[in-house]
C-alpha cells in the first residue's frame, strides 16, 4: 500500500508538469496585457492615455512580472518558484498568491467535502431503493425527479433561488449572499454562529450538491440493477437468505464499485461548479477568487488556482482508485501500476 501510494504520487509529477505547461502556454499566448490593464485601472477615468509616465509604469510592471522575457523563460521562472511553493504575487494587489489562496481555500474545501458526503449519503440509499423497487411508482417518481435535477443548469437554479427566495419583493427566506451576517458579532453564542452559517449556506449548498447527487443516484440505481441480475444474487435468494441481507451485504459491495470510481469525475465537476455557485452567492471562496482573477487577467492567481484544481483532481482520481481497491479485493494495489 505504501509503495503503491509512493508510485502514484511520483506519477503525479509528470502529469502536473504537462498540465501546467499547457495552461501556462495558453494563458500567456492569449492576447491581453495585464500591465496595461493594471495601469488603466489605477489611472483616473479607467482607460489611461499613453503618457510618458504611464509608459514608464508599464515598463516597470512588465519587468517586475517578467512579462518582458520569452514565454519559456517565464515558465521556467514560474516553475522554479513553484518548487519552493511560491506562487508569486497577485497582479491585482501585490499580495502573495499563497496568502490569498490560504484565505479562500477553507470555505471551498469545506463546501466540497460536505457536498461529496451529502451527495453520496443520499444517493446510495436512494439508488438502492429505486433498484430494488424497480418499476414501482416510487421508483418511477424518483427516476423522473432525478432526471429533471440532472438536467437543471446550476446557474439557473441559483439565480431562481436568489430572485424568488432571497428577495423582499417575493419571499425573503434566505440572505442573498456571503457566509455570515454583516452584523455578526464575536459575542454570539456558538449555536447562534452555527445557525448563522447554516442560514447563509443552505441555498448555496443545495445548488452546489444537487447535480452530483442526481448523477450519482442514477448511476447507483443502474449499478444495483446490474448486480441484482447476477447469478450469485439468485443463489443467495435461493438458499433462503432474507432480502435485507442479500441487498445490503451481498449486492451493495459490488454495486458500490462503479459509484466510487465516479468520485474521480465528481471532484473536478465540483471545482468547476464552485466558480458559478460562489459567484452567484458571493461566497468568498476559491471559485470567486478565480472569477475575479480571470476578469483582471491576474496570471499568478489563475495559474495557482489552476494548479491547485489539477492537484485536487489528481487526488480525487487517486482516492477513487484506493476506494476501488478496498471495495474490490480482486484488485491489488501493486498490479494497478504498470
Amino acid at each position, binding site marked *: 500500500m505504501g509503495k503503491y501510494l509512493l508510485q502514484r504520487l511520483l506519477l503525479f509529477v509528470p*502529469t502536473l508538469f*504537462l*498540465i501546467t505547461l*499547457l*495552461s501556462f502556454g*495558453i*494563458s500567456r499566448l*492569449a*492576447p*491581453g496585457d495585464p500591465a496595461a490593464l493594471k495601469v488603466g485601472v489605477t489611472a483616473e477615468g479607467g482607460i489611461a492615455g499613453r503618457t510618458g509616465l504611464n509608459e514608464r509604469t508599464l515598463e516597470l510592471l512588465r519587468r517586475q512580472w517578467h512579462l518582458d522575457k520569452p514565454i519559456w523563460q517565464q515558465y521556467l521562472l514560474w516553475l522554479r518558484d513553484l518548487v519552493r511553493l511560491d506562487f508569486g504575487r497577485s497582479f491585482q494587489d501585490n499580495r502573495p498568491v499563497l496568502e490569498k489562496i490560504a484565505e479562500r481555500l477553507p470555505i471551498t474545501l469545506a463546501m466540497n467535502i460536505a457536498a461529496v458526503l451529502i451527495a453520496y449519503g443520499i444517493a446510495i440509499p436512494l439508488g438502492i431503493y429505486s433498484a*430494488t*423497487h*424497480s*418499476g414501482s411508482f416510487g421508483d418511477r417518481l424518483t427516476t423522473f425527479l432525478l*432526471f*429533471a435535477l*440532472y*438536467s*437543471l*443548469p*446550476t*446557474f*439557473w437554479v441559483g*439565480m*431562481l433561488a*436568489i*430572485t*424568488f427566495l*432571497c*428577495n423582499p*419583493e*417575493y419571499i425573503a427566506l434566505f440572505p442573498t449572499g456571503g457566509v455570515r451576517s454583516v452584523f455578526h458579532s464575536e459575542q454570539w453564542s456558538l449555536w447562534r454562529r452555527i445557525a448563522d452559517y447554516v442560514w447563509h449556506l443552505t441555498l448555496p449548498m443545495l445548488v452546489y450538491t444537487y447535480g452530483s447527487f442526481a448523477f450519482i443516484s442514477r448511476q447507483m440505481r*443502474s449499478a444495483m*440493477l446490474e448486480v*441484482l*441480475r447476477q447469478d450469485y*444474487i*439468485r443463489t443467495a*435468494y435461493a438458499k433462503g437468505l432474507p*432480502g*435485507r441481507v442479500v*441487498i445490503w451485504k451481498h449486492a451493495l459491495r459490488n454495486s458500490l464499485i462503479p459509484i466510487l470510481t465516479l468520485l474521480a469525475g465528481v471532484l*473536478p465537476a465540483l*471545482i*468547476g*461548479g464552485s*466558480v*458559478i455557485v460562489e*459567484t*452567484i452567492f458571493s461566497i468568498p471562496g476559491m471559485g470567486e477568487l478565480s472569477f475575479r482573477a*480571470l*476578469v483582471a487577467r491576474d496570471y499568478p492567481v489563475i495559474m495557482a*488556482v*489552476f494548479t491547485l*484544481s*489539477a492537484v*485536487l*483532481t*489528481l487526488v480525487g*482520481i487517486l482516492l477513487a482508485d484506493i476506494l476501488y481497491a478496498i471495495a474490490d479485493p480482486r484488485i491489488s494495489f501493486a498490479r494497478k501500476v504498470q
Partner: protein
Amino acid sequence: MRGSVSPPDAVELPKEYGESYGRAVWRQFRKNVVGIASLGFVVFLAIVAFLADFLANDKPIIASVKGRLIFPVFQQYGVALGLTSWGEWGRVDWRAIRYEWAIWPPVPYRPETTDPKLQTLRDRAPSARHWLGTDEIGRDVLAGIIHGTRYALSIGFVAMGIALAIGIFLGALAGYYGGVVDILISRLIELVLTLPTFFLIITVVAMVQQGSIWLIMAMIGATGWTGVARFVRGEVLRVRAMEYITAAQALGYSATRIIFRHVLPNALAPVLVAAAFGVANAVLIESALSFLGFGVPPTVVTWGSMLAKARGTVTTWWLVLFPGMMIFATVAAYNLIGDALRDALDPRLRT
C-alpha cells in the same frame, strides 16, 4: 425489502430478417415515447432556428409601399449573401414607414433592437408589447430566445462534431493497432481526463479578449472527446477480434479501408449515446460561460447571456425564468434522447 430478480435477457437485439443494425436500433428507439417527444422538441428547435428571421424581426415579411410589393426579410438574406444591396432601404426605420398593408413577423423585434419607449422597470416586465419582457436596455426577450436557438443548436452540434472527430479517430487507432499506439493514446486520454475541464475552458475563453462563439465550440470539442474515444476503442477492440475482419485482412485490404469501411460501421452505434449526452453538456457549458460573462461578445444574444443580465438586479424575474427554461428544456431533451438511445441499444437496461 422486496428483492425480486428478473432473469437476464439476451443482449442481442431481436432483429427482423435482413434488417440492418441501425434499423433495429431505430425500431427500438421509436417505441420510447419520451425519446420520440424529445427528438420532436429538438426538431422543433431546429425549425425555429431556421425560421428565426421570419419569427422575430424588425422588418415586415411582405409589405406594400406606394403600390410596390417589398419583401424586406428576403432582401435581408440577399444582402447578407452579397446578391443585392439595401439601396433606398439602407437606413429606414421600418416601423415608421406608411404601408398600405404589411405582414409582420409574430415578434416584431430583432434580438438587438432596443425599444426606447420603455422607461420604468414596470415597462420592461412582460406585457402585450413585449410578451416575455425586455432586458435593461429594452431588448426583447422572446426575440432573443428565438434567435438564441441558433447558437444553442450550433454550439451543441459543432462542439460535439469536433469531439466526435477527435474521439473516433484516436479511439479507432488505439483499438485497431493496440500496442504502443494504444498505450500512448490511453495516456493522452488520462491526461485530458485529469484536466479541470470547465476551469480550463473558462481560463482560455476569458484570456482571449476577442472571445468568439467558435473558440468556445473548439474548446468544448477539444476537451470533450475522451468519452467517445474510450467508447470507440472498446468497440473496435471487440469488433477487431471478429472473423470477418480477419477475412478482410487476409484479402489484403489496407488498414484504413478496414477501419473505416468494416470496423467503424459496426462500432459506432454506442457512440451515439455518448454524443447525445455530449451535446447536452456542450449546451450547458456554453450557457454557463455566457452567464459568467465570458465568451460571446456583448452584442451577441444567447440564452446564457440573457440570464446574465438578471445578475445584479433582483426584480427582473422574467430575465431569469424564460431563458433558463429554454436551456433546461434543451439540455433535458438531449439527455432524454441519450437515455432512450441507450435503452434502444441495450434492451437489458429497460426495467
